[in-house]
């Protein structure tokens, strides 16, 4: 059973729809990436799920939600640019956040200590937050999102604004977290999505244009492109290539040919047979696997 189901979520600001009929469900224990270019409605979607803003249309249902209509009890949320009470220490802020989420003071202190350990801020726990670096603040932001042991962790661009080291720290932390929590995070960086997520929701102009597990998305789009180069221009080459059973598309760019095929093994065998039979002077045979990047670019351009 899904942890959360969002159906037909729509958010309109003065006739401009920022999020348009978005439906998806989040399974327990999955790490889901909400992937899309800037301005595609990622933050708005996350804010609706975090209970911050109310959808114009559609609804969100938590299957855990028996007690309270306030989603915020079940959701830990990290905004894109977390800002804290800078006059507090990291630990003080965590305790405060915990108590706001109805933990008792003792529970909040215990939880704060655990989380400071987890996000590796133990040494600086007594330091004022104003002295923290960007990466430390981001980790503190993750810790405060986790303080009330939420069912769902929502992270808005958790790694995008960080330098490579900070980004690595946050991604490692997410990998750690996904062992026992459900995570939904937004990003416009494909690598981040590829690296930690189990599932991807591809969002563009407020609509979900692709969704599925990494595996599914890859297999759906598992067309492989082969690039061929020759020393000379063989006769009837395009026709001959098109005759090959496993090739379903041939394009030409300058002197290179790009073949789109489904099954690389068969295509390679058939192709090399033709090359041999026709005695073409093949100088280059290159396989380019379709990455998430192509998928992304294709989907966005659609």
């Amino acid at each position: 059973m899904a942890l959360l189901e969002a159906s037909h979520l729509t958010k309109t600001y003065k006739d401009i729809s920022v999020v348009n009929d978005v439906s998806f469900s989040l399974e327990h224990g999955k790490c889901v990436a909400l992937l899309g270019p800037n301005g595609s409605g990622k933050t708005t979607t996350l804010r609706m799920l975090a209970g911050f803003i109310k959808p114009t249309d559609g609804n969100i249902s938590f299957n855990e939600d028996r007690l309270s209509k306030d989603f915020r009890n079940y959701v830990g949320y990290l905004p894109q640019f977390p800002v804290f009470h800078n006059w507090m220490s990291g630990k003080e802020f965590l305790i405060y956040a915990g108590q706001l989420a109805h933990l008792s003071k003792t529970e909040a202190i215990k939880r704060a200590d655990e989380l400071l350990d987890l996000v590796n801020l133990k040494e600086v726990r007594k330091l004022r937050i104003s002295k923290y670096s960007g990466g430390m603040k981001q980790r503190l932001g993750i810790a405060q999102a986790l303080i009330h042991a939420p069912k769902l962790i929502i992270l808005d661009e958790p790694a995008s604004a960080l330098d490579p080291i900070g980004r690595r720290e946050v991604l490692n932390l997410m990998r750690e977290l996904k062992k026992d929590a459900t995570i939904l995070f937004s990003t416009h960086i494909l690598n981040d999505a590829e690296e930690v997520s189990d599932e991807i929701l591809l969002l563009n102009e407020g609509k979900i244009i692709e969704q599925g597990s990494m595996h599914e998305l890859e297999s759906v789009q598992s067309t492989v492109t082969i690039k061929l180069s020759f020393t000379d221009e063989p006769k009837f080459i395009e026709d001959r290539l098109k005759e090959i059973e496993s090739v379903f598309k041939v394009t030409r760019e300058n002197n290179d040919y790009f073949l789109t095929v489904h099954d690389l093994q068969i295509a390679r065998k058939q192709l090399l047979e033709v090359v041999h039979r026709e005695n073409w002077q093949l100088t280059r045979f290159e396989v380019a696997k379709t990455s998430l990047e192509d998928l992304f670019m294709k989907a966005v351009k659609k």
Partner: protein
Amino acid sequence: MQWYVIFKKEILENWRNMKWIWVPIVFILFAVMDPITTYYLPKIMDAVGGIPEGAVVDIPMPNANEAILMSFNELGLLGVLITVVIAMGVISGEMKSGVYELILSKPVKYTNYVSAKFMSLALIVFLSIFLAVVAGWYYVSLLFGSIDFTKILTSILFFSLYFALIIGIVIMVNTWVQSPGVVAFLSLIIIIALNVLTSIYGHIFTWSPALIGDYIGEYLHSGVLSTEIWYSALMAVIFTFACIQFAILTLKNRALQ
């Protein structure tokens, strides 16, 4: 419980940013300034001289009631100004900086958030008024003559209600705009408008909270609490409550956008 957590955080914040120290001191200085200078001004002028021989300098010495009323009036001006300034960023500042988003991502009730902030500010301001008026009373007693302390206490209570309304207004404006400076500006306009309208139509709006200061003057003089002061106090409480409610509703609606 949650209310108390927010309230305690506000108290701590105001301790770390020194508001608990500087606001009472400044209020006290405002309250004692006028009685002291009024008492010493003729003596200073005497000593400095420069007054032509034969000219009679006749500055009437106020009585004790009039002198303590100077303290109240000073607080009614400068004290209000300081109150507006210390309350101007209490919500708008958190929105502007963005910390609001983190706090409200937790299941925080808007009622708790707003009312805890109101109470923490009211506590500082009430304490400051109390200390200031008592200090003023001390100097008045020394320089001008004695006033019954219960009269002073009663006056402080009524005066505090006017300040509660000031805080209520500033908190309400806090939810409209995100710039503390603009909050202060708009709040002062509302407060000035309230006072100007009251002074023009005072004979109609005898219940206006802006008249509390005047009624305190009458009370100090006569020793009798008029019906009007009770109505003004009641109106101050009602308006304050309305401002807080309005602030809560504004934040709720903003969240739903």
